[in-house]
């Protein structure tokens, strides 16, 4: 039988010590920063390329209807909106300023962040989807004057089919997976939050 004081003596005489050195931490900070920078860089390159391609198409190709230019503008807007949101959330979670708050506040922040991400991936996606569909429809007006009817009809059916698959299969799976993760996380966090509450 041991009392708490003996347990404390045992603890203080223990050997386990961290096997991570100060230099290793510094090395990780450098690589972490590089990884972060690289990720942001490649995201920017991808978006920049998409926007430049759209602009280049606008300049080089002489479209016969104004609707196509509008379609391109909508596409650029959608890409920009998506990128700005991703970047904003990414910066927010990377900034770590919430780590300085008390545990309960941090848990609340994580919950709010996850819910925000969930909203972005569900509700905002529908708006995003509608905008892309409108852009395709506007571009379809131009194609109506160029392509043979049956080719246009084929493309139209393919696009509609692809949208339906994305909406009812891929997105449903994604939302289900995301919700499961959020529910599991909220469950864990709620449990801990309850433990920290003043009793």
């Amino acid at each position, binding site marked *: 039988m041991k*009392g708490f004081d003996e347990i404390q003596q045992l*603890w203080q005489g223990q050997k*386990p010590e961290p096997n991570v050195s*100060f230099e290793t*931490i510094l090395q990780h900070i450098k690589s972490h920063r590089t990884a972060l920078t690289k990720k942001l860089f490649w995201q920017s390159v991808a978006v920049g390329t998409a926007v430049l391609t759209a602009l280049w198409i606008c300049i080089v190709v002489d479209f016969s209807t104004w609707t196509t230019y509008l379609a391109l503008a909508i596409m650029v807007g959608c890409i920009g909106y998506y990128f700005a949101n991703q970047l904003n959330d990414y910066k927010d979670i990377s900034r770590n300023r919430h780590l300085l708050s008390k545990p309960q506040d941090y848990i609340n922040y*994580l919950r709010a962040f996850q819910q925000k991400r969930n909203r972005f991936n569900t509700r905002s996606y529908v708006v995003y989807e509608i905008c892309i569909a409108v852009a395709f429809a506007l571009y379809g007006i131009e194609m109506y004057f160029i392509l043979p009817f049956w080719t246009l009809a084929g493309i139209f059916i393919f696009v509609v089919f692809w949208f339906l698959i994305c909406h009812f299969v891929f997105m449903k799976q994604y939302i289900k997976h995301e919700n499961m993760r959020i529910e599991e996380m909220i469950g864990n966090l709620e449990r801990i939050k309850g433990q*920290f509450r003043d009793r």
Partner: protein
Amino acid sequence: MRDQRQLFQQLFEKNSKKVYHLCYGYTGDSDSANDLMQETFIKVWQNLDTFRNESQFSTWIYRIAVNTCLSYLRTAKRRTTDELNDNIIENYAEEPSEKQEQIALLYKSISQLDENERIIITMVLDEIPYPEIAEVAGISEGNLRVKIHRIKHKLTEIYNSNERL
């Protein structure tokens, strides 16, 4: 930059062992504890500029460590307590001595406490002042004292029961 590096080195040397103990007490696994300790100090480095002197550096670091441990729940693959306990025994199997066995048993007992109890008790065992623990845990000192009394009793019971087994 040089000053920041010096300050960071000082903070690391002064606090790394205690942060490691906190993470070890929380996870019951030395590899995860090392990872969490590393993650904690990366966050400390990233946020050095934002430190406002409202609390002690050590309190600030513990708070980051606690939050890192809490978020470990959502990112790491969860293992059951039994698996953790096996891991604890394995970690100490390299140098089997009576003392090592007792320490392994102590970590096993800590892992049987609730998450917040593990965090609080590791700080108590490391003799962190009560006001500092209260600030880290975000609860009043009065309530902390009640909690500590209960946790000490609970840990002692679990330890002795594990020892008998």
